[in-house]
């Protein structure tokens, strides 16, 4: 509990001459709901990509549950307890919705190299997948091809995939991006539910600041790749540096 679940030290990545994430040192305590905000181009998604292992940092290190994971490939971080969603919908288009989630459940269950048993004989995997679909209100679309889902439903499926991994840290990259406005409240409700469960850390990147303030225990502000401020939502709202970053520009 005292040990932060994620700890970055001088985390830096450069693309050519551009420093997208610039010496960010951050401790994220266990079981918190933490939002990462900042103006466009602040490096939020890049920061996510560094934590989840999609990008390798130019400098600095990342610890997860006290272990140095800086050079660990993505799939190992996922197995160690991270789960993430993507800004752009990222599912298995030709498979059924249920099969999408079943694959995620299978990954969590550690059924990797079983090559002679039929996958449907793992009843518990299918049941777990169906339960997950119910929790994101997709149960009635279980047999549909993922490709044919509406955008909002794809986002929900994406969320279900990550939840299936039962991650200790859930990285959510703009879960409402591109959603029809009337679909947003359902996602917010789901986030609130996840938070209420209280058994995991949630890291959220979001543009719609107002939306996340009420949910967050902690808010981290990035600007131009640097860590500008961190603290409780109210403190962040009142922080003059933050206001300046948003109002006064950073450029």
């Amino acid at each position: 509990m005292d040990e932060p679940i994620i700890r970055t030290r001088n985390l830096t990545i450069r693309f050519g001459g551009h420093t997208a994430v610039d010496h960010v040192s951050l401790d994220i305590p266990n079981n918190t709901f933490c939002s990462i905000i900042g103006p466009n181009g602040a490096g939020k998604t890049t920061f996510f990509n560094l934590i989840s292992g999609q990008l390798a940092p130019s400098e600095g290190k990342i610890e997860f549950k006290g272990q140095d994971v800086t050079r660990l490939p993505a799939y190992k971080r996922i197995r160690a307890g991270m789960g993430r969603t993507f800004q752009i919908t990222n599912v298995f288009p030709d498979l059924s919705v249920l099969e999408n989630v079943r694959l995620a459940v299978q990954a969590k269950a550690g059924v990797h190299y079983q090559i002679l048993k039929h996958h449907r004989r793992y009843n518990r995997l299918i049941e777990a997948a169906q339960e997950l679909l119910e929790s994101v209100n997709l149960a009635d679309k279980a047999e549909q091809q993922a490709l044919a889902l509406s955008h909002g439903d794809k986002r929900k499926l994406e969320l279900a995939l990550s939840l299936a991994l039962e991650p200790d840290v859930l990285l959510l990259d703009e879960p409402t991006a591109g959603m029809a406005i009337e679909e947003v409240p359902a996602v917010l409700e789901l986030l609130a539910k996840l938070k209420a469960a209280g058994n995991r850390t949630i890291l959220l990147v979001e543009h719609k600041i107002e939306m996340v303030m009420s949910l967050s225990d902690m808010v981290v502000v990035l600007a131009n790749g640097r860590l500008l401020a961190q603290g409780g939502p109210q403190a962040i709202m009142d922080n003059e540096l933050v206001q300046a970053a948003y109002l006064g520009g950073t450029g």
Partner: protein
Amino acid sequence: MILRLTHVSTFIGQFHILQDISLEVPAGEVTVILGRNGAGKTTTLRSIMGLAPATGGTISFMGESLNGLPPYAAARRGIGYVPEDQAVFAVLTVEENLRLAMLRRDRAGNERLRFVLDIFPDLAQKLKQKGGSLSGGQKQMLAIGRALVHDSRLLLIDEPSKGLAPIMVEKLAGALRQIKDHTTVVLVEQNFNLASAVGERYVIIDDGHTVQQGLMSDLQADQNLQRRYLGIAAAREGGKVV
């Protein structure tokens, strides 16, 4: 009317995104397309450009039909397009990005380049930098500047304020006011403040249909209409929690 869409219908895959879009854009003015997320605003611009070819209806630009034209032909007729995600070429320098849009190297082209660097002084200082190294706001300027260098009689700009800090939005509004003296602009915008600050006319799209169009001043006066179609977007600008 420099641009006229009549009963335009567009499919993307099996999805009927635009079902009945009819709108008119008078020359020399800024027309703002408003509507909720997913209403079909971006697709409308893409259909005009030929990027999402219309399957029905007619699109005419300066009296000639654009239906069936590939995007580069629409561009050559004088339509500039600034997509939602800016699409600045990361591998090219700022200067190369701008030069790429200059189809002919003539005096007029050089003048337009000077004009662009005039209204976006930030770019003038970064000519030799790679596009990929710019900040979000600078990329947006470059994307708009690029469309201007390209001698556009009509400029389609998709959500330029998206994700920009308020100060950047301010700068952008200023630039747009300068631009509209030179070309006709069609702007897709969620930020109602920006939309009403620079727009003269509005078109509201909902579920792939045009539902209302007219003068921006009328829309500003009509709270009812605002709430009906733009409700949340407008409220959000007021800083209230959704």
